[in-house]
């Protein structure tokens, strides 16, 4: 109806009613995201600040944050590099079986993480198919954790970068080449800047997913305190002791740090987008 009143609205919108859709968006986000997340904080309020602080700064817990963030960052970084490479191959070349490989990329999404964890542990344990060829231990060390996290995070980068690569016009590359740039220069100066926001998003998503990952990691980690104990496992161990507050306290810390990191990446993304789009 509002669409018909002329003069009041300049743009015609496909879905009617900004108020209605915005209202729905807020309600939906509140029920699905905000209320569950606020429970994490509300639950911690029942413990005093001192107790809260003691819980979240316990050496074992701190060691687990470090491990969780370091492995998640490493895995996201590896995915950012190799995800771009895979996306590149999938968009720029034609070869038999391309559709199948393209489909394979999504497999880590669909697979239950526990299955991934068990499979990877079997492969990388000292007597496993792959593990036996290495002189050092992979499963039950942080290296094993990183491998599991690379596995579950791979699709994010590929699926973010792929459409952008597809949309880059060939003409730009040709122009760059005709102006005398070699292939490396063309990639670094023309293509890469276009990809940065997509890579950052893929990196952020892969990182966030890795941080919260529990299912695939508990099998391959070995779960040794101070060495291979991830924060989600600490949360689980607290729950096993019926320590709801302690568990949510650790969860709250994870939530805050994750939020800060994602926020930083978003700012970076906004900044690079602005800088390279020339607006």
């Amino acid at each position, binding site marked *: 109806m509002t669409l018909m009143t002329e003069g009041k609205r300049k743009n015609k919108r496909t879905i009617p009613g900004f108020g209605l859709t915005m209202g729905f968006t807020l309600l939906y986000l509140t029920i699905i995201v905000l209320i569950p997340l606020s*429970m994490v904080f509300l639950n911690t309020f029942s413990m005093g600040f001192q107790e809260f602080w003691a819980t979240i700064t316990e050496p*074992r817990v701190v060691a687990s944050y470090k491990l969780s963030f370091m492995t998640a960052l490493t895995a996201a970084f590896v995915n950012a590099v190799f995800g771009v490479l895979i996306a590149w191959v999938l968009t720029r070349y034609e070869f038999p079986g391309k559709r199948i490989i393209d489909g394979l990329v999504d497999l880590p999404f669909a697979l239950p993480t526990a299955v991934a964890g068990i499979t990877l542990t079997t492969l990388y344990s*000292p007597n496993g198919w792959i593990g036996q060829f290495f002189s050092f231990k992979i499963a039950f060390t942080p290296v094993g954790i990183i491998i599991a996290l690379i596995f579950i995070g791979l699709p994010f980068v590929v699926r973010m970068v792929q459409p952008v690569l597809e949309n880059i016009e060939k003409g730009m590359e040709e122009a760059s080449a005709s102006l005398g740039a070699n292939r490396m220069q063309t990639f670094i100066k023309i293509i890469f800047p276009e990809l940065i926001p997509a890579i950052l998003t893929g990196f952020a998503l892969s990182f966030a997913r890795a941080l919260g990952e529990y299912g695939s990691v508990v099998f391959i980690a070995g779960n040794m*305190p101070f060495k291979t104990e991830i924060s989600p496992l600490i949360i689980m161990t607290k729950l096993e*002791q019926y320590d709801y507050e302690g568990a949510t306290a650790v969860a709250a810390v994870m939530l805050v740090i994750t939020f800060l990191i994602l926020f930083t990446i978003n700012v970076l993304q906004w900044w690079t987008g602005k800088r390279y789009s020339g607006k």
Partner: protein
Amino acid sequence: MKKLMVWSSVILAFGILAGCNSEKTEGDGKAKTVELLNVSYDPTRELYQEFNEAFAKHWKEESGQDVTIQQSHGGSGKQGRAVIDGLEADVVTLALAYDIDAIHEASNLLAEDWQKRLPENSTPYTSTIVFLVKKDNPKGIKDWDDLIKKDVSVITPNPKTSGGARWNYLAAWAFAEKKYDNDEAKVKDFMKKLYQNVEVLDSGARGATTTFVERGIGDVLIAWENEAYLTLKEFGDDKYEIVNPSISILAEPPVAVVDEVVKKKGTKKVAEAYLKYLYTDAGQEIAAKNFYRPRDEKVLAKYQDQFADIDMVTVDGKFGGWKKAQETHFNDGGTFDEIYQPK
């Protein structure tokens, strides 16, 4: 705040229950069919499959009622939490008395004296902790001291997440106390050495078995006796063998009727009969066949060859009950954490 969380899980649980139980019948003793939910821990899956069948037959003969029993298995602590958060279990059969105590404390779904209501501490069958080693015992492991040798690698689950692992820990502790004549510093040192030899801390008993058997990691698995026998049955006694330590612990996985749930569902009579049936000859036989030590002397005598004679301490006798053991050893800041503090 806890209330809100409990409520939301209750609502969720109701939704799920309503979804799959459209024809729920109330078992007030008159209805023709009745349904029970037995919330249990991991390694009892095989035991209760067999037992439920036997009980259903028995109950049909005795009361003419058809009874179907749903089983829910998982880590003991996790199962306890599910009941606290609103999973409507008629009976709980968990790995430790502590997990049932926690249900009483957190939700008051059953009375404090639950453990006194059935014979033998409400524990119809027991088990103990033994070692599983590779065939012919290449590292020559005979007792707990052998586990702290430098070149021995040990597999046991994490006592923070696994009920079974807590039995393992306490059994080792009991050995050390005897060996070092209650010198606490030496006992802790022993435990520290033992856990330094642990290569992987799985989150549950089954996971630890997998690590040892399938991944081939470690020289010795500290395991429930029934789990060890099950492994032999599953993977062959030509590959593994069981070593009985000189001293171990009497592992008592207790059972209880959840009062508030059976009152609401009207299943009190059948739930009580269900647990009591565990103590009958038939129930004891099934337990023994599944490698649990039966309480009944007669049945135990019949299966005597199956169970080695091990000197066993009890949690109540040695550690002052589960509540105390949990606080001293396994809660945050307890001795287990102490063992894992960096120097």
